[in-house]
């Protein structure tokens, strides 16, 4: 018989241009995994994934949410947004490629490192995007 796997579910709404909330979700996630005893380097990778995803949604999307499932051996992060979508994912995955508007860059964001940082920090990284609909990102980090 299959028993349901024990885990924690954390959910965070992400709102367009609400920069004052940037970093809140990722630091909460980091605190949780640290309290579980996940080693420092792994906790750091999880929080980088969360932070970049959080920021991407705030900058580019009209709204979205992050669902984080924390298990005893891994953390899964799923970010769904309603936004313009990413027209060229391959280009977006290149370091330094950014579609962030100037006003965002002036704030020190939008350096074009978001997706590459996520892909580098996660053990598994999947992205799907459709124009004018939105973007879906799933990341997995093993302990």
């Amino acid at each position: 018989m299959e028993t349901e796997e024990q885990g924690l579910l954390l959910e965070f709404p992400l709102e367009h241009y609400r920069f004052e909330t940037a970093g809140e979700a990722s630091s909460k996630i980091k605190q949780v995994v640290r309290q579980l005893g996940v080693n420092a380097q792994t906790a750091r990778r999880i929080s980088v994934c969360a932070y970049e995803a959080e920021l991407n949604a705030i900058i580019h999307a009209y709204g979205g949410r992050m669902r984080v499932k924390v298990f005893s051996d891994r953390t899964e992060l799923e970010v769904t947004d309603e936004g313009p979508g990413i027209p060229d994912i391959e280009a977006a995955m290149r370091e330094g490629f950014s579609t962030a508007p100037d006003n965002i860059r002036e704030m020190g964001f939008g350096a074009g490192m978001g997706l590459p940082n996520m892909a580098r920090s996660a053990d598994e990284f999947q992205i799907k995007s459709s124009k004018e609909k939105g973007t879906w990102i799933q990341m997995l980090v093993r302990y």
Partner: protein
Amino acid sequence: MDSDAGSLLKVGASAEKYFHSVRLLPERCIGCVSCARHCPTEAIRVRSGKARITESRCIDCGECIRFCPNHAKTAVTDSLEDLKNFQYNIALAAPSLYAQFEKNISVPSILAGLLKLGFDKVVEVARGAEIASAALDEYLKRKDIKRPVISSACPASVRLILVKFPELIEYLSPVDAPVEIAARIARAEAVRDTGRAPCEIGVWFITPCPAKMTAILEPIGVEKSELTGTISMISIYGELLKAVSTTAKAVPGHLASSEGVGWAVAGGEAAGLSDTKVLVAHGIHNVSNVLEQVAIGKLNDVDFIECLSCAGGCIGGPLTAINRFVAENILKQRLKEMRASEAEGCAELIDEEQISQALRPKAPIEPRPALKLDDDIRVAMQKIEMIDDMQKRLPGLDCGSCGSPTCRALAEDIVQGTASETDCVFRLREMVRTLAEEMVNLSAKLPPSLTHESMNKESVGPVSLKRTVNEDKKWIGG
């Protein structure tokens, strides 16, 4: 060590595991939560009317000493009495000490004042800082190191990393702290000059902060400190003030440069570096903030971050005597004069041997697992859920009346079994109200026999209750 150290409150099951200079004087503590609310690692809880320090979380920054209105927090350091145990005693004068005296009192006269207090020799820590700057410059040239390099000169900041940011341990600079370098040189010179054994020589740091005391008894990265002990700056300030004002005689020997003395103020360490991108964070909450940014990878293009636990730098240390802004003003004026008199390009060459000594490989630094809720990750998960549920029941005012610094911290303490839900005055009031309502309801209930009878007459239950309440009021009023 101070004779009253024995009476200080040591708390926690792990009391023996870590040494801490910061202690509580229980007779002065009135059980307010000022210290708990200012603690950067949430290490303090007020229990049974006294502030208790969780040893595994304390980083000896001394914020609690600074904020306690009753001066119930103290730092255990050594005293001048301890000099008796050694044949020959050396005082290490921190540059922050020069900021404790008016500018017209010269550095040589401050150093001479220390001799009057019973030391045989005085050495400037600023000399060690000059070597540390050169060593750091050398280290930053390396291509194989993780950037940004984080300064390890402030022992409280280093401990903050161990407790809160263990992922950043590998970013710490391996360079010895200036005071360690100065102590090593001073002891070696004393052995050479006096012919005494190293163990007969006491090397004492006149310290502006408690974390330095902890760093000696429990060094991080090095096996054993070069120092014998520390003497709190504020504890000898009165005597030293008398000694310096009557002394004009200069101490023979070369004096440290403005580069070394500048380390006493925030930015001084970074200023000694050539051609590097630096950031300076001072004040322990700012240090925590900048480390947070390093952790999420936002400061990868910075070469070096100077982290100082005290606002303003070491001159703002909790064991200094003078207000930090007054001290900063004095030190800056001293530095200005020093720079004016220092001829261009004739700075003393620093011994290569000293640089490589300061950079020698260090022991690996172990993180402190102060946050982990349970050894079993499944149990820890359950605890997180329980903490979240509990937090929702608490008012979220972070008033601290319960003795925990925040509602979240109380929720954690309840789940970890060190506090109870009734510790929250708001929860307690709610519980009392619920109980009172229940009592009122119960008092209205009558045995079935009586209920049956009364139903035959008139409904008396609720009415009789009202009457009781009214009568009560009358009675209270009368």
